């Protein structure tokens, strides 16, 4: 099997039962596997809530290490709408040409650095740098700030594997507290200041609410973007003809990006808490237990996607759920898509070949399933055109 392949461990369970089960720190999870079921459950926010105890809808659960509610993702309608209305325009700025130019400059530089080095460890030296530097644009703060986030390494929110690490999470939380205080004293045109001066649902955001938005902005777009970027590099290393094709047919960049995002599903799943006794494809779900919406499985649903386990760069109809579905769909999707578009175009333009020297898979253990989501390490050599 190719090193860049991400196999689908859910197929049999999806076909036979429609659900899977995993234990997560004694708070079990029923995993919803089929595309239609995942969408239906994502849509029914009254039954499957996001506004549960902070940290509980994340799998593995973070209830033991945080109390701050992440916003808007751990808030249900109707309050949710006020927050989204405030945040959506800001998070759509990546559609502006000026933003796109700045992002292209950042990504060109990261690719140039890689082309000039003998060998690159993609996760730390390519993806983390790219993600951190791009995040300065989304927050609208100076580029130099990225150095601090890069110095944290890739695992600031949790230790290797599944174990949660409160001390590590505290680095981020303390940092954000300090940045909020700084912005309160000295307002500018960065996201912290904008939020501190905003009203939602008729009242000013509290510092705790601002912190909730900022934690989500840091955490939600970190591992996911790193996985998408690293997996793309691995894919192009093993499929040089794809990179050539995108170079020759630039009109397929959009379908190629959406397809890579479908296939990689950088976030495997996201939980919800049942507010009443209910069922998912005839399997009982008790009130106050958790389900997860398994995006990775839904994206391989053979009922909707022909050849689901193949990367088809010009797949035209591609109703994937890598950015979630419904009310809580990904706030950072526009930024993430813009990163991927720019990256894929830049690689197609500048890179002749990529050779994988060494790799270490990142495999998630989810009860009965083992899912490869990306790499802990990936050493490659880039060759310029």
């Amino acid at each position, binding site marked *: 099997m190719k090193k860049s392949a991400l196999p689908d461990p859910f197929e049999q369970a999806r076909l036979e039962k429609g659900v899977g089960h995993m234990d997560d720190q004694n708070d079990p999870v029923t995993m919803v596997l089929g595309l*239609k079921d995942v*969408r239906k459950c994502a*849509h029914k926010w009254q039954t499957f809530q996001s506004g549960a105890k902070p940290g509980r809808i994340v799998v593995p659960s973070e209830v033991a290490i945080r109390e701050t509610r992440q916003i808007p993702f751990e808030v249900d309608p109707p309050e949710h709408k006020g927050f989204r209305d405030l945040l959506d325009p800001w998070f*759509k700025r990546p559609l502006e040409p000026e933003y796109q130019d700045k992002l292209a400059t950042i990504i060109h530089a990261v690719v140039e650095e890689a082309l000039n080095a003998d060998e690159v460890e993609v996760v730390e030296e390519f993806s983390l740098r790219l993600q951190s530097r791009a995040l300065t644009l989304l927050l609208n703060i100076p580029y130099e700030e990225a150095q601090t986030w890069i110095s944290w390494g890739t695992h600031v929110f949790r230790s290797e594997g599944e174990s949660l690490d409160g001390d590590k999470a505290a680095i981020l939380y303390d940092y954000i507290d300090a940045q909020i205080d700084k912005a309160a004293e000295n307002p500018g045109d960065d996201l912290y200041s904008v939020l501190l001066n905003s009203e939602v649902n008729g009242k000013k955001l509290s510092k705790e609410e601002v912190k909730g938005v900022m934690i989500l902005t840091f955490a939600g777009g970190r591992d996911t973007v790193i996985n998408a970027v690293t997996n793309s590099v691995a894919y192009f290393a093993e499929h040089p003809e794809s990179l050539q094709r995108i170079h020759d047919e630039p009109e397929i960049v959009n*379908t190629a990006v*959406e397809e890579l995002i479908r296939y990689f599903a950088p976030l495997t799943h996201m939980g919800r808490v049942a507010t009443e006794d209910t069922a998912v494809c005839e399997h009982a779900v008790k009130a106050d237990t958790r389900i997860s919406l398994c995006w990775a499985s839904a994206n391989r649903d053979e009922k909707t996607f022909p050849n689901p386990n193949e990367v088809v760069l010009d797949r*035209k*109809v591609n*109703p994937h*759920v890598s950015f979630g579905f419904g009310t809580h769909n990904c706030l950072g999707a526009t930024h993430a898509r813009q990163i991927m578009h720019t990256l894929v175009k830049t690689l197609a333009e500048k890179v002749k070949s990529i050779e994988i020297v060494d790799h270490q898979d990142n495999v998630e253990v989810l009860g009965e399933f083992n899912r490869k989501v990306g790499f802990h390490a990936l050493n490659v050599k880039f060759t310029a055109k």
Partner: protein
Amino acid sequence: MAKITFITIENEEITVEGDSGNVMELAVANNVAGIDGDCGGVCSCATCHVHVDPAHVAKTGEASEIEQDMLELDDNANEYSRLCCQIQVSEQLDGVILRVAGDE
């Protein structure tokens, strides 16, 4: 060339002309408010939702099954709903009127 008229949530009327690509691309290129086209037209985001004027349904034809599955869970969907990235621009569309569905 086909003339296509969009009516936004604000009741603004925008008539544009096109002869290739899909209707979402045309709407985005002409800044039709409420048509975002986040996924670039692969039927994954539903930010290109329109209601076809009932008198013009024959021009656009019916939604595919995959498109219907997306629309089924949209609170704002009705029998005239389409994801306009799934409608190709052609002569046949000439004169069509599409209302932006919005997200509520």
